[in-house]
């Protein structure tokens, strides 16, 4: 067990897999000589050489397509997108080719490709570079969507994503790269499609993932001081979604809040709410609450960005609503509520 940052854990996962299987290669903008835009591929060019760590032009549609072709012909590419915002110029390749070739070829082609890169807002990057796009890819049959929230999950899930024979959308938390955590040494994997209870509790279930999971855990910590015991469930894989772990938690707590970074309409949270009400109807003591980004493109101003983004006070307010508790005064900071 070593203490690693989230980016180091991802680096370790790729290196271990590439050492194990030489059909794996990494390709993307600045992954080689620049050592990665977010330094995730630090040292990999030196270790694996230019044939396996390939710098590309700024042409996402092109190199994403190259990755898909390589996967069809027997290699196992890891395609790094500098951020998932840039995937929008390559979305035709991902949605129309990566997601569908296996089915359309009657299973003659596998598609063992991982598209990875950071998602979500990272602070004053503006409307076009602050999006949380998991809902788009989760809506497409044929794609798996993975979103780790801790260094250990990042390593274990990326290893499994690389080994998967289907295309995996691997969305890293842009603000999680520096987060430190214990990571098991060696070849320890985390299966896709298995949620994890990140904090146990009895009064309310929060379902959240990626960066928002860390915010939810902060909120749970504050609520604990008010004797409200929150259980926090991290799906880790958005698709396929591990509903059963969520249902078990809600059946225990009878209340549910879903927290996500993206917008509310048609987002992953809506799907989770639909499934929970369907499967836990008789166990719900209150309507399920959602916390998500407000319905507006991300502003550049820091204060406005903070305003529309889910935060600890808004999560606390939602938990109190499902518990039928009076809401704290909006102007007070969460810490000031602690007695």
């Amino acid at each position, binding site marked *: 067990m070593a203490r690693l940052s989230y980016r180091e854990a991802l680096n370790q996962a790729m290196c271990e897999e590439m050492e194990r299987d030489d059909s794996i290669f990494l390709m993307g903008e600045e992954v080689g000589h620049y050592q990665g835009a977010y330094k995730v591929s630090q040292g990999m060019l030196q270790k694996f050489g230019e044939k396996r760590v390939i710098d590309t032009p700024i042409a996402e549609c092109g190199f994403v397509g190259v990755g898909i072709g390589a996967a069809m012909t027997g290699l196992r590419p890891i395609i790094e997108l500098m951020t998932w915002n840039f995937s929008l110029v390559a979305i035709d390749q991902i949605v129309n080719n990566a997601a569908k070739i296996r089915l359309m070829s009657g299973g003659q082609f596998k598609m063992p490709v991982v598209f990875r890169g950071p998602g979500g807002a990272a602070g004053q990057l503006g409307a076009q570079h602050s999006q949380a796009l998991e809902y788009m890819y989760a809506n497409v049959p044929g794609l798996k969507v993975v979103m780790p929230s801790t260094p250990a999950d990042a390593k274990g899930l990326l290893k499994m994503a690389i080994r998967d024979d289907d295309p995996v959308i691997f969305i890293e938390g842009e603000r999680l790269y520096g987060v430190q955590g214990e990571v098991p040494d060696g070849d320890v994997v985390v299966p896709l499609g298995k949620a994890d209870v990140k904090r146990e509790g009895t009064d309310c279930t929060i379902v959240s993932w990626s960066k928002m999971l860390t915010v939810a855990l902060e909120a749970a910590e504050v609520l604990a001081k008010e004797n409200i015991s929150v259980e926090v469930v991290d799906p880790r894989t958005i698709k396929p979604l591990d509903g059963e772990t969520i249902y078990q938690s809600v059946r225990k707590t*009878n209340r549910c809040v879903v927290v996500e970074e993206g917008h509310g309409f048609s987002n992953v949270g809506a799907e989770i709410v639909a499934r929970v009400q369907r499967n836990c*109807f*008789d*166990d*719900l*003591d*209150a309507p399920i609450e959602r916390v998500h980004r407000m319905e507006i493109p991300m502003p550049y101003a820091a204060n406005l960005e903070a305003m529309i983004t889910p935060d600890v006070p808004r999560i606390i307010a939602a938990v109190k609503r499902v518990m*039928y508790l009076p809401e704290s005064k909006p102007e007070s900071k969460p810490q000031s509520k602690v007695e």
Partner: protein
Amino acid sequence: MASIITMPKLSPTMEEGVLAKWTKKEGDKIQPGDVIAEVETDKANMEFPLEDEGVLLKLLVKEGDTVKLGDPVAVLGEAGEDLADVMKEVGQKGAQPQKKTDEPAAPPVAATVRAETGDREQGDTKAPDPTRAAAKSVPVAKPAPASKQAAARPALSVVQAEPANGNGHGRVLASPFARKLALEKGVDLKRLSGSGPHGRIIKRDIDEAAAHGEAAPSSLAYVPSREDQLVPASQMRKTIARRLIEAKREIPHIYLTADATVDRLVEMREQLNDSGTGTEGAVKVSINDLVIKALAMALARMPDANVSWTAEGILRHGGVHIGMAVSLPDNGLITPVVRDADVKSIGALARETRSLAERARAKKLKPEEYSGGSATVSNLGMFGVREFVAIINPPESVILAVGTTEKRPIVVTRDGHDVLEVARRMTLTLSCDHRVVDGVLGAKLLGEVVKLLEKPMGMLL
């Protein structure tokens, strides 16, 4: 000229009917003989045909409404006709004198036709609401029918939760989990006031109630809802209740019981049924068919018992028509009648009883098929009942209650010695109307039945 269609008499004893289903809608053209509705009478679901031609201009009652005999149900006329006059007439026909002016105006479930034609023409045919009708002012020129508009008959009693826990909704609001928890802990939701929004009962309220001893004794934990419920009685059930009370009050019943040894009867039935096996159209004869046949033949031999007491005198029935009690799936009871059962062959009789029973369960009997009997057979043998006494089905004067066929020890005399043997026995109890059938006559009738059952070849003659 538009004409008013009223509720017809669709069964001999019908006083009111439930309009079960409209089979035609407003605007439909009607040819003579067209069925415009199905009506649930006290006995069966009947078709409601019209003899006239025209266009169905207006339906005056909703499906499910109870309508008294002769009350308006629809208007027939020509397309585009002005209905003002006829609706006025409808209002008067529908109106009934109110017994007490201070009677609370119950929301009418039954079809009511308001006196004010104005309301009708505003298309308000669906939800008669006397309070609203009262609020609307009636044109001065028309007699303001304060008493008429309260034509609302007492409503059918309807299952309805009483206003609950003061939340102003008239029903219990509780979260799904609170409901589940209340069930588990035996907490009555109706007694709680909810602390959630709109008075919603939530987990916390159940926990508090359980902690304060609202819960049922722990041994009864997880008892599902056991509240009393008031459910509307069907037309048939109301008729059964009324007629049985009449029978038991009016008729001085006497009861005669005898056992029959039916080994031969059982054997004969097996032979009859075996003989038809594999033959197309073969019918299975039941024990009950043979009892019906025996009672019919016994009555034919004792015409003094084939009678009815009437106010005018003793009615001697020309034929022997035997009713058979059939229980219906929805907790109903009806007695279709096998006509001239004494002269019909056992095969014909068996075919007929099967057909009658099937159609009785489907509520497809015609009125003449369940009236005019001179005696009834009621059989609970298939439920293992050894013997019971039945209530006479007026205006009949006897009813035969048939118990189960079972092996019993009997004492018989063989070569001058009494010995115990095993025989198939059946206990029969005859209820007689003592006004016309005295004990001796009844005993002779019952003895004849027993004789026929014990020597069943006699029924083949």
